[in-house]
Structures are given as structure tokens and as C-alpha cells.
């Protein structure tokens, strides 16, 4: 087993990985940018190394600095978390070259799944269903011909892509040339590669992914599905498992396809095979594979009963799985809500500021993975994810009720959040019936914040009245009020 692991990430996922290390008796090294000097993930680690300025390329995306930090602290492995360098094959290769262990798949697996066109070809070879489409074509004529065969609407998307960049929906042949040009130019800008591919566009699909996990001895299993159809701006906000859409027959078929997909690229460690599923035909298609730990891994941990991060570390250290596919099963139902600092009434634009209050819910069946505390600053440099609220219950209904109760106990002041928005999604009949598809928020859900009630105005007035009287202070304040019971002792060293 490793003696010391460097965590090349920040926020909730860095802390979550450090907890796993602590439980396994492994020392931890945090890396951080100047903006994160007083972050919880730095305080949680045994040691910490400053990487550089706040901009990710100066810090969390800087391969050389991170490898230097690992050498300097005598770490023997690096966990990349998710985002940042986690799916960067060059990083995985650089970690290898530095004689350190990369806690994740091989650089080759990352590379093979990183290119959408190539991975689609290898998936087809492996017998994994892919979205009908054509890759490797160039001329406008070929694209038009392919689109006609597939049937409009179609999607043109960057081969090297990811994150929704270099992607266009084409509804009719007349839009093809313009869309193709737009996608190519975006792809060139974003990835330095203007190759695009074309495929059938399924507007009302479910996004269902399978967790796969392999050890270095060729044992590869899946840990069942996660239903991630509730999205806004192509980003997941609510995930759950089991999926209300899957039958056990379909679950078995998709699980086998996921394992076949991973096997095709010689996969080990944790990965996720994403599928889209047509709810009308129940046909499923390979979308892409994320060659890293997923944000929403906790719902799988609840329902399958395994600690995925501990197993990532164990596998990387050479341990074999003590179980096989038939030992694994789902029990109960788990849901995750991603609490973002964003304004759902204003196009989901991120919200920044100092957290005046940050009270996490607690109780039976509730787990909160967060990297923030009251007093922390939410900056514009990084992802606006404040916390992941995860619940489990005996069944879907119990889990939904628990999530609603838990969300109502989450208090965040200082930035706008999507808590009330998610509360409304959970209460919607479409969600309760399991009928939410990936474009549901955009097309079916017109949310407006409610008007302040009498109680709200009274509380605001009381806070206001009393805050001006230093003898009866009751509330938070960002203002330099020496009487405030909230002020941090930032002047400590004076």
C-alpha cells in the first residue's frame, strides 16, 4: 500500500479522497492555488504545496508543478480527482515517467476514449451499440448524404471534443453547411483539431451511465447504473440510482455492454460508460466513457455498498477484487443533488461571494460532500459546485421525501444557489414519475422563484433593526462591524 498520496485537485473531491486515505492509513499532500490558501482541503491534508496563481493553468492544470510537488514531498502516488487533469493522458504518462503511480486507468485507455471518433469505431468493433452515424468523412456532400440516411435531426460534433464545445444540432439540410462550419471552427479553437462526426440526434433521451471498475488482473465488473437525465446547460444537477427507466433485462444488457466497452480499451480502475436511452424504444447507445471517478459516484456507493475511492487506491496499489459480478447487487435507492452557486432565475449564471452562512443538513441516510464552510469565499476561478447532497432510502419514494427534507435544511447565505430550484424539480410530477429527459429543464420546466412571504419580510426587518443596534446583534454581516459575532479574526497577526 502507498505511504503518501498527493491529491491533484481541490474542493469537495480533494477532501473526499483524503478521507479515504486517512481511513487507509495513508498520508496526504494537498496542492493549492493562491486563491485556495485558506481552503478546507488544504487544512485537511497532512502537508500542502502552493502551486501558483489562481488561474487553473498556473496551478491545478500545471503538470510540471504538480509532479514537482509530489517529488518534493516524497509522495508515491497521485490521485487526480475529477475535472482538471483527470482525463489528461499526458498527465497520466508524466506521472508514470516520474516513477509515481497514477490512481486511475492507463494513459493508453485515457487516450483511446478521449477521441470521440476513434472510440466510436472501437466500440462498434467491440459490439457496443453506438448512436447511428458516420465518422471519418470530410466533404459537405458526404455529410449531407450521411444525414439523409440517418434522418434529421442530426448532431455534428467535434471528434476531439467534450463539454458541449464544437457541437451543433442540424434540423434540416439547409442548415447543414452553416452548422458544419460553426462546429469545425469551434472545434479548431477549442481542441486544435477540426475533425467532426455526424450522428442521429435524440432530443428526448435519458442519460444513463454505468459505473465500471477493473483491477490490474483483468477482473472487470460494473456497479450498475446512474440515471443522470436531470440537466441544465448540458450539466447534471440531480442523479439517482437505480434508474426508474430500466427493466432488469435492460440493466443486464447495458451492464454487459459497459463491461465490453471498458474491456475493449484494456481498462482498469474506476470509469463510467455513458449511454443515451430512447424511452420509447428502450434502445441504448454508447455516448462516451469518462476515464476517471465521477462527481456522482456517492449514489453508487450507497446502493452497492462499496467505497469507490478506497477501491481506486487499492486497485492502483495492485490489490485484486475479492468479489465478482455475481456478488454485487443494488439495495435501496440513492439520489444526489448538486448544490451550485448559481442563479436559476438568471440563466443559471454562477454567483460569487463570501459565504455568510453555510449550514449543511444532517440525519439518517444523509451524506454531504462539500469543500466549503461559512466565511469561505466562492470565487469565479473554479467550478461553482458548493456541495453534493446525497441521500439513500429503502425505495425511490422514501429517498425523494428524504431529499426534500434535507434540501429544506440546507442554509446558504452569501451566494445564490439552486436549492429552491431543485426542490421544485423534485416536487414535479414528471420527476416523481421518472420521466425527466435531458432537455426537460430547458423545454418543460419554467421555474420562477416564489415571492417573499410575510415571515420572510418580518425576519429581514428584525435582522435589520437589530443589526444597527450593537447590543442586540443577531445576524451575519460582511461589513467591518467590530461587534459582530461573525467576524473572523483576520487581523490576528497585527
Amino acid at each position: 500500500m502507498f505511504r503518501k498520496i498527493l491529491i491533484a485537485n481541490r474542493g469537495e473531491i480533494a477532501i473526499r479522497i483524503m478521507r479515504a486515505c486517512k481511513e487507509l492509513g495513508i498520508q496526504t499532500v494537498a496542492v493549492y492555488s493562491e486563491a485556495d490558501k485558506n481552503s478546507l482541503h488544504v487544512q485537511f491534508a497532512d502537508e500542502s504545496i502552493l502551486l501558483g496563481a489562481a488561474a487553473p493553468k498556473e496551478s491545478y492544470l500545471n503538470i510540471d508543478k504538480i509532479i514537482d510537488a509530489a517529488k518534493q514531498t516524497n509522495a508515491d502516488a497521485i490521485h487526480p480527482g475529477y475535472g482538471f487533469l483527470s482525463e489528461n493522458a499526458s498527465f497520466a504518462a508524466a506521472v508514470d515517467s516520474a516513477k509515481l503511480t497514477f490512481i486511475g486507468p492507463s494513459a493508453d485507455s485515457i487516450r483511446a476514449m478521449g477521441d470521440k471518433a476513434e472510440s466510436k469505431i472501437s466500440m462498434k468493433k467491440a459490439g457496443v451499440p453506438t448512436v447511428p452515424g458516420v465518422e471519418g468523412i470530410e466533404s459537405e456532400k458526404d455529410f449531407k448524404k450521411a444525414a439523409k440516411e440517418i434522418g434529421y435531426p442530426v448532431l455534428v460534433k467535434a471528434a476531439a471534443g467534450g463539454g458541449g464545445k464544437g457541437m451543433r444540432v442540424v434540423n434540416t439540410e439547409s442548415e447543414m453547411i452553416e452548422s458544419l462550419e460553426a462546429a469545425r471552427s469551434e472545434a479548431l479553437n477549442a481542441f486544435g483539431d477540426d475533425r467532426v462526426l455526424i450522428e442521429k440526434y435524440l432530443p428526448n433521451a435519458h442519460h444513463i451511465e454505468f459505473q465500471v471498475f477493473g483491477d490490474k488482473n483483468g477482473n472487470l465488473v460494473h456497479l450498475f447504473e446512474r440515471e443522470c437525465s436531470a440537466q441544465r446547460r448540458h450539466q447534471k444537477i440531480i442523479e439517482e440510482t437505480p434508474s426508474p427507466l430500466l427493466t432488469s433485462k435492460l440493466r443486464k444488457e447495458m451492464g454487459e455492454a459497459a463491461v465490453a466497452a471498458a474491456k475493449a480499451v484494456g481498462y482498469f480502475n474506476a470509469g463510467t460508460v455513458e449511454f443515451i436511452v430512447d424511452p420509447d424504444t428502450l434502445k441504448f447507445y454508447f455516448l462516451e466513457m469518462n476515464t476517471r471517478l465521477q462527481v456522482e459516484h456517492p449514489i453508487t456507493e450507497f446502493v452497492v455498498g462499496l467505497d469507490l475511492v478506497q477501491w481506486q487506491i487499492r486497485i492502483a496499489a495492485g490489490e485484486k477484487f475479492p468479489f465478482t459480478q455475481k456478488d454485487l447487487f443494488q439495495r435501496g435507492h440513492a439520489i444526489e443533488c448538486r448544490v451550485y452557486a448559481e442563479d436559476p432565475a438568471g440563466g443559471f449564471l454562477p454567483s460569487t461571494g463570501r459565504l455568510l452562512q453555510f449550514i449543511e443538513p444532517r440525519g439518517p441516510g444523509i451524506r454531504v460532500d462539500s469543500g466549503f464552510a461559512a466565511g469561505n469565499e466562492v470565487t469565479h476561478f473554479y467550478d461553482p459546485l458548493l456541495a453534493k447532497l446525497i441521500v439513500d432510502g429503502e425505495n425511490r419514494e422514501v429517498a425523494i421525501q428524504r431529499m426534500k427534507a434535507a434540501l429544506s435544511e440546507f442554509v446558504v447565505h452569501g451566494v445564490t444557489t439552486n436549492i429552491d430550484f431543485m426542490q421544485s424539480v423534485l416536487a414535479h410530477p414528471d420527476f416523481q414519475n421518472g420521466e425527466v429527459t435531458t432537455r426537460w429543464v430547458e423545454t418543460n420546466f419554467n421555474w420562477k422563484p416564489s415571492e417573499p412571504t410575510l415571515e420572510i419580510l418580518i425576519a429581514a426587518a428584525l435582522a435589520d433593526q437589530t443589526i444597527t443596534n450593537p447590543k442586540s446583534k443577531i445576524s451575519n454581516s460582511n461589513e467591518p462591524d467590530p461587534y459582530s459575532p461573525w467576524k473572523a479574526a483576520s487581523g490576528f497577526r497585527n
Partner: protein
Amino acid sequence: MKTTFDQRAIDLTSNGKNYKAVLDDQTVDIEIVHAENGKLDLLIDGNHVIAYVSSDGAKRWVTVNGRTFVLTKSSGTASDSKNRRSSAGGEHASELAAPMPGQVRSVNVSEGDAVSKGQTLLVLEAMKMEIRIQAPFDSTVKSITAKVGQTVEREQILIVVDKLES
């Protein structure tokens, strides 16, 4: 004491132990059972209400029953920020402001350029997102107040355009 939040006035008077609030011609009795660490334990007309409250300048954050509201105290300057925020997309506005804090990634036009409605003038990067600042109407670029690489605050003016009369 009278206070106005987002155009709604509330009048709070203390009668020793308790408070009385008047708003929208309604009168309610308030008892403060306990107040600590930004958490108020109240009885409002006898009903138990827990409220979390925070202040930040003119803003009041209040959470009751799991719902959070941000109210702006308006002492004559009612809904100031609302007006300013909408200026970015308003029909008559010519000052284009940053909708959120971020870093200027590119400035695609020069002063004096004629631009058409919807044209991207400047790209901001914030929290992994690209935000395109587009021309609200066919116009001329009057001045550019942001530079590539610069970190800007929310509502900071980035570009000023003059509407073309057509």
C-alpha cells in the same frame, strides 16, 4: 421603525418584550423566543417560525422553511441593482456590463467598429464557462473599457455602444 425591502414596506415597533409588525395593512404580533448565531426562533401570531438571517450591505438573506430570499433594503434607492443588472440586455441601454465576475478572454472588436445585433463583441471566462457579450442592436462601438486578461467584477462596464438609427 419603517423599513422597505424591494418596494414592500414593513413597520416594526417594539412593545417591551415583543414586537408588532404592520405590512400591507396587516398587523401581526411577534415574540422572539431566542436569537443566536444568525438564527431566530420566533412566534409570529403564535406560530413557530425559525428564520436564518444574514446581512451584507443593503442585502438581507433570509431562510424560512427551507426557502431562501435575498431582499434589498431600499432607503430611497429602491431596486437599484435590479435596474443595473437588466441594463446589459435592455432595449435602450448602451453600456454592456459583465453579468458575473470573470476574466476577459478576448475582445473581438475595436472602437469605432460598426457591429450588428447579436454579434459577439467580447468573451468572458468564468467558472469553466464562456460568456459571450453580444451587441443588443445594430450599433457602433463607442468605447472599450476592458482589456484581454483583465479580471472584472459583476456589473462592471465592459463596452459602450451607440445604437444605429435605422
